[in-house]
Structures are given as structure tokens and as C-alpha cells.
């Protein structure tokens, strides 16, 4: 496919794309419990075992295999990230598109509500939502989705407004094209590019937030594993068992880096400004 080839011929796209591919594979393996060990199994004799052939990334205080828990945790945060971003994308696209199209009162109402949501620092809004609904995986999904909806709304509304004033939309109006035709064929089709970029970057951000929330003990609850929880558990043991800190930390950094790099590459590839420069 042309898109894949474009991504893999872009320097940061190649690195980002590879990381994201590996990440997805690890996440799927983790979600389907295809891990080297049972992540909940406590190998009592091997507590705080250093990394070895049996335990690739060592074991934790309870003798659980860190590698397996890490895979499970990656799966968990992937699930949270993808669900949250999917919800935010759908909500943001509908709100942004209708705000741009109908303008006036509806636009004013939607954008003021988004302003109110944006008045809270992101983590704080997520915390508020969790304070109300109680900590947990699905609360994290809802919290991240609500935090990200105003950003998607803005990302869609801005370009939608500018496309709306482009001459091909004027042309469509002179033909008498229906509203649904203009909204889908002219606006939405041209929004695919900025949305793709934003979705990728939003995934990076949602991984970050999910990890932060579970680090604070407000996301995924034990005994289920998540990268943030693993890091929180490593805090008092980092001198005796640094692998508890290092592996999850690297996993978080690399996965966020992957999505960021991919997002940057997509922006370069899909941005008509840079494309016309190379054409």
C-alpha cells in the first residue's frame, strides 16, 4: 500500500512505525495471555530474582514474572488508549464538524463547553472524573476520552471551517449538492489527514496519561497489571531490584516515542504544504 511505503521511507516514520508494530504485537500477546509465564503466578522461591533466562526481566516482590506482567500491562494500556482515543475521535469529529457547519448558536454552545473543559489542566480533569466515578480501567477510558474530546473538536473544527470556505465547497453549493454530500465527500474526506495525525499523537498522550493515573493508584487496580502500577511498586525497591524500575520505564518511553515519531512522520506525509513542496 502507498501509505505504508510512504511511512517506511520517512526516517522517523520507519522507526516509529516499527516501534508501533512491535508494540501492537506485544499488546495483543499480552491481552490474550500469550506470555512466557502466568503474570499472576507467584513463584515464592524466586522473589526479586534478577533477570535471567527463565525470568527475562526478573521477578517482583511476590515472585511474579516481570516480563509477563509487562506484556499484560502493555496490553492493558493499549486497550485503554485505543478505546479512549476512539471515543474522543468520534465525539470530537461529530462536535467539531457540526459546529463548523451550522455555526452560530450551536457553534457558540459547543465551543464554550469545550472552553470550559479545556480550562482544567488535563490530568486534573481526569482526576476529577475519577474522583466522581471511582478508580478503575473503564473510568480511565472515560476520563481520557473526555479530556481529549475538546482537543479533537478543535482539531476538526478549524480545518473544517477553512475547507468550508474553499472554492470547491462553493462550487458544490452552486450545483445544489446536498448537505450530507458536502459534509461527507468534501469536509470529512479532507479531514482524514489531520485526524490521522491527531489520533496517532493522541494515542501517545493517552498512554502517558494512563500510566500516570495508574502510577497514582487511580487507574487499573491490582492485581491486574499496568505499567504505571509496576513503576509505583518499584519505588521502594529500586536500589535492590532496579529491573523493576528500568524495564517498565523503558517500555513506557519507547512506546510513547513510537507513536510520537509515527505521528510526526504522518504529519510530514499528509500535510499538503510539505507535499506540494516535494511534488
Amino acid at each position, binding site marked *: 500500500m502507498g501509505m505504508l511505503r510512504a511511512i517506511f521511507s520517512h526516517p522517523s516514520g520507519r522507526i516509529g512505525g516499527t516501534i508501533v508494530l512491535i508494540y501492537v504485537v506485544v499488546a495483543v500477546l499480552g491481552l490474550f495471555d500469550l506470555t512466557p509465564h502466568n503474570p499472576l503466578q507467584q513463584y515464592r522461591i524466586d522473589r526479586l530474582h534478577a533477570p535471567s533466562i527463565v525470568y527475562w526481566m526478573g521477578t517482583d516482590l511476590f515472585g511474579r514474572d516481570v516480563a509477563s506482567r509487562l506484556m499484560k500491562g502493555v496490553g492493558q494500556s493499549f486497550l485503554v488508549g485505543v478505546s479512549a482515543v476512539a471515543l474522543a475521535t468520534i465525539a470530537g469529529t461529530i462536535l467539531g464538524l457540526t459546529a463548523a457547519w451550522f455555526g452560530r448558536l450551536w457553534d457558540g454552545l459547543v465551543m464554550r463547553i469545550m472552553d470550559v473543559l479545556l480550562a482544567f489542566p488535563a490530568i486534573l480533569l481526569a482526576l476529577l472524573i475519577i474522583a466522581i466515578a471511582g478508580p478503575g480501567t473503564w473510568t480511565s477510558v472515560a476520563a481520557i476520552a473526555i479530556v481529549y474530546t475538546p482537543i479533537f473538536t478543535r482539531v476538526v473544527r478549524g480545518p473544517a471551517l477553512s475547507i468550508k470556505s474553499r472554492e*470547491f465547497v*462553493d462550487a458544490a453549493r452552486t*450545483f*445544489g449538492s446536498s448537505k450530507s454530500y458536502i459534509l461527507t*465527500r468534501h469536509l470529512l474526506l479532507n479531514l482524514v489527514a489531520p485526524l490521522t495525525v491527531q489520533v496517532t499523537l493522541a494515542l501517545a498522550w493517552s498512554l502517558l496519561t494512563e500510566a500516570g493515573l495508574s502510577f497514582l493508584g487511580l487507574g487499573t487496580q491490582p492485581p491486574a497489571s499496568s505499567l504505571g502500577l509496576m513503576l509505583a511498586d518499584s519505588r521502594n525497591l529500586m536500589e535492590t531490584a532496579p529491573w523493576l524500575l528500568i524495564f517498565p520505564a523503558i517500555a513506557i518511553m519507547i512506546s510513547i516515542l513510537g507513536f510520537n515519531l509515527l505521528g510526526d512522520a504522518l504529519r510530514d506525509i499528509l500535510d499538503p504544504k510539505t507535499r*506540494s513542496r516535494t511534488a
Partner: protein
Amino acid sequence: MTSLLSVSNLRVGFGHDPAKNEIVKGVSFDLAAGETMAIVGESGSGKSVTALSINRLVDFGGGKIIGGSIKLTRVDGSVLDITEAKEPVLEKIRGSEIGMIFQEPMTSLNPVLSIGTQIEESFRLHRGLTGRQATAAAKDALDRVRIPDATRRLNYAPNQLSGGMLQRVMIATALACNPRLLIADEPTTALDVTVQAQIMALLGELKRETGMAMIFITHDIGLVAGIADQIMVMQAGQAVEQGALSEVLDRPQHPYTQHLLSAVPHFESGRAARADFSRKEKETPALDVDGLVVRFKVKGSMFSRAQGSVHAVENVGFDLMPGETLAIVGESGSGKSTTARAILGLVKPTRGRFATHKGSITDATDPATQMVFQNPYASLNPRLRIDSILAEPVIAAGGRVTNETREKMKALLKRVGLPEDSLERYPHQFSGGQRQRLCIARALMLNPSVVVLDEAVSALDVSVQAKVLELLVDLQKEYGLAYLFVSHDMAVVERIAHRIAVLYAGQIVEIGNAASVLSNPQHSYTKRLISAVPSIDRRNQHFEIDTRQVPSLVRPPGFEPPEAQWREFGPDHRARAEA
């Protein structure tokens, strides 16, 4: 006469491998002190790159001089090869010995610095002036380019001035240190034609006053007649013809120069107007517009009511017969595009009545009226294939895309001169001229009787313009189309219009037969407009400097303009009587 600048075999390339991507391929010329040379060419000819090489600004745009020499005789009489000069030396030369002005005055001045600061900078850098002295020098510089009220304007930010004023500021900046050479890169292309005439007049006067030499770059061969001593015509990186002004204009040798002079639209004061149509008695017009008024409310501030409205279009009326072209001409802000958009229902008219031969237009989306827009790059959805683009009017009219529709698409593509396989391609695979052909094909999908062409050829290169105009004329004869041709370009209008309506400040000031209006304009604005149009016939013409401004179109609430008084000047030619 010693030459000020001597360029020989200049070659300039771009990108990682400049030798492979050569834009200027061996250009040579000599320029004497006080002499003006025009470089004429279309986009991609290498004319701007040649100019930017002379002060080595080309380095900053990713270009590299890969061969040849540029010898500049400096003030002290020494000769310097610019191609080998180091950056600190170049910095001394730029601004003090070589000044430059650019195409877009709106973006060429720093938006966050005041105009005064930007002019003073030249004096600080090259004359060592500071403080009050620099400010006084900047004021004198503004006076010199005839900007009224210079002291106050020094504190203005660039966005507070019009394009024409900004270009004057640019000229003031470039000439601050009396450079012996001014490079003007399409300095009037972004400006209205009457403003262009002002800038040309100013450049002419300053040239006489200071005795500077000038390199004037333009795509408009008609414009050079008024200012140049010699001409160089460029095509695809090479100088295809160079010589003295009259020599090149009167006895062009190279086919490309001949083409530019003959095929490209030049203004000929009505002599080139079309005479292939005459109105029949008692025919129903294809389009009848009566008393069209478009006003936009000026939003008041938070604490006050609306302050009135912009009277964009004021009581405009005309009729258009099948097979006829009516051109609506005017400058920016004249209301010509708003008129077109109102007829197509893109702008809601405040008052007025339109009728096609089918009857009064109640719904804005009448398939009998179609439109072609100015910007061929923005008027096709980049994400749709050509077959979807051409199908859109059919779908919008409630039809379905059948084999018959596809046949029609193919036939129309062939008719506008595009290959059949275009249907499976995307807009970005076409050039500007081809895209405009696609837009024309799309407009014809529903067999309209009226096509509104809003600056339809303005964004195209001059030689492409000529071909598209030819196509439009052919299509008009073939299908009996009525054209409403909106344009600012008098040369283009002369080639396509049967009748002309001149719009000024939202009102028609003169309307009538094209030949008659162009050869014998009656209203003072029409006269001004037509005398401002550059022409190869008017060599070294002296323009009058005139700082009149377009009147404000904002009127208090409830304002109604007085009834227009018309004077007849022939069977089909009338002009508004002036107060």
C-alpha cells in the same frame, strides 16, 4: 560607458545536487549605470532566480551558483565578482549598493516592527545614523516615495497600510541608501492596475532623480514598455532573446518572444474587441439582473449597536443574451466578485431580482447557471477522483451516474482538451491550466445556459491564459453559452467580452459595447482605469502620480444612495453622470 554590472554565463541550481537541478542555464548580460533592464518570462523561467543571484539572496532559498560570474563595479571603482564574495562583504553591498523590492508588499515587511523602524534600519546599517537622525532620515525617505503624512505613518505597523502604500514603503527602504542598482522582482503583480500605474510612475521618477540602474522582473511584457531600456526574455532558464527595448518589441526574432507578443493578450484599447455577436431585437435574455443590492452589516462592538453596513453591491442591473459575453471589470473591493457570487446564491442579496430565460430564479441552485472559480488549485476537491468531481453536479441535480453520464464526461474532457484517462486521476496530477479546463468541463455537465467565470484565467500563466480564452470562445459558439466574465485584467477582457460593465465602489459606472467602452471611455474612473493598463504601444509614458483613495463603502444604517443619472454615448454605451 562602463558597465555597472556584468553577468556572464550564470548558472544556478537547487537542491542536494545543484548541477542536476539547474534552474538558470547560462545567462549573460551587461547593465550600464542608470540603465534599466527588464527580464520577462513566465513562472519557472528562472527570471527571479537570476535576479536573486545578483545579490546572492538565492543562497538562502536553497540555491547555489554553480558557474559563471557576476561582476559588480563598486562605488570606489573596484570590481567585485559577487559569485565569489564572502557573506560579510555581501552584507555590506546589500542595501547600500544593491537594493531590492519584491512581489508581495503585504508579506515583505516584518509584521511586528513599525514601518519607521524598518526604514531606519538601512540608515543604521549603512550610514551609521542613530536616534533622531535616523528617524529624520526615515521621514525623508517616506516623503520621497510620496507617502502623505509621513511623520505619523512612521509609527504604523505594516498591517495598517494598503498594498500600494506598503510597496511604497518597500521602495523607500530599498532606496534609503541610494543604491546604484535596484532589483524589482514583479513589484506590481499583487497590486490593482491603477495602483500599479502609480508604483510604475514612482519608480520612473525616482530613476530620473537618482540616476540608479534597475533590473525589472515581470511576466507582463506590456508593462516593460513604459520603463525599460533593454529587455531580456527568458524561457526555461535561458535568455532566448535580449536587446534594446524597441528592437525586441518591434522586431522579435525568437519564436517565444513572438508568441509572447502576439498570442498573449495585450491591451489594444478596444481594437482587439470581439465583433462576432450582435443583439437581436426582442430576444429573451439568458440572464436578467435587476436592482441587485448586497450589504454586509458591520458588527458593532460589545457596547454599541451595528454601525451601519458595507454597501458591497449597490443597485447593479444588466441583461445577458444567449451567446453573449458581459465582462464585469473593476479593482479589488469594487464588488465584482460579490455580484457573481450573489447570482449563484453564494451570497445572500439584500434586494434584487434575477431571471434566466426559464423564469425568475427563486432557488439559488439553478442548473442553468454555473460558475468557474478563480483558483484552479482550490476549486477541485483534492481527495476526489476526476470522475467523482464531474459526477457531482449530476448527483446534486438528482440524477444517477449511468453509462451515458460517463460517456458525457469523456466527451466533455475531450472537448476541453484533456485525455480520456483523466477520469481515473486526481486533481494534483494536473497543471493549473488543465485544472481550469476540468472546472469548465464540470460547469458544462448540466448543459447550462449561463456560465459565470470569476477571474477564471487570472491565476494562470500568460500563454496558458490565451489558450483557455480560446477554448472559452469556441465553447461559447458551439453551445450558445452566455458568459458573465468577472475580471480585473483589461487585456483579457478585451479578448472575450462583447459588452463591458465597469464596477467602482459597488456601482456600475459605465456599461456598453466593449469596443466603444475601451476605445472611448466616458466616466472618469473608467478613463483612469484604462489609462493605467500597461501596453506595448505606450513606450516610456509619463504617469501622473495620484494618491486618491477608494472611498469607504461603510454607510450609516438606513443610508440609501441617490438615484443614478445616466448619460448615453451611442447606441449601446452609457455612463453614470458624475456629481
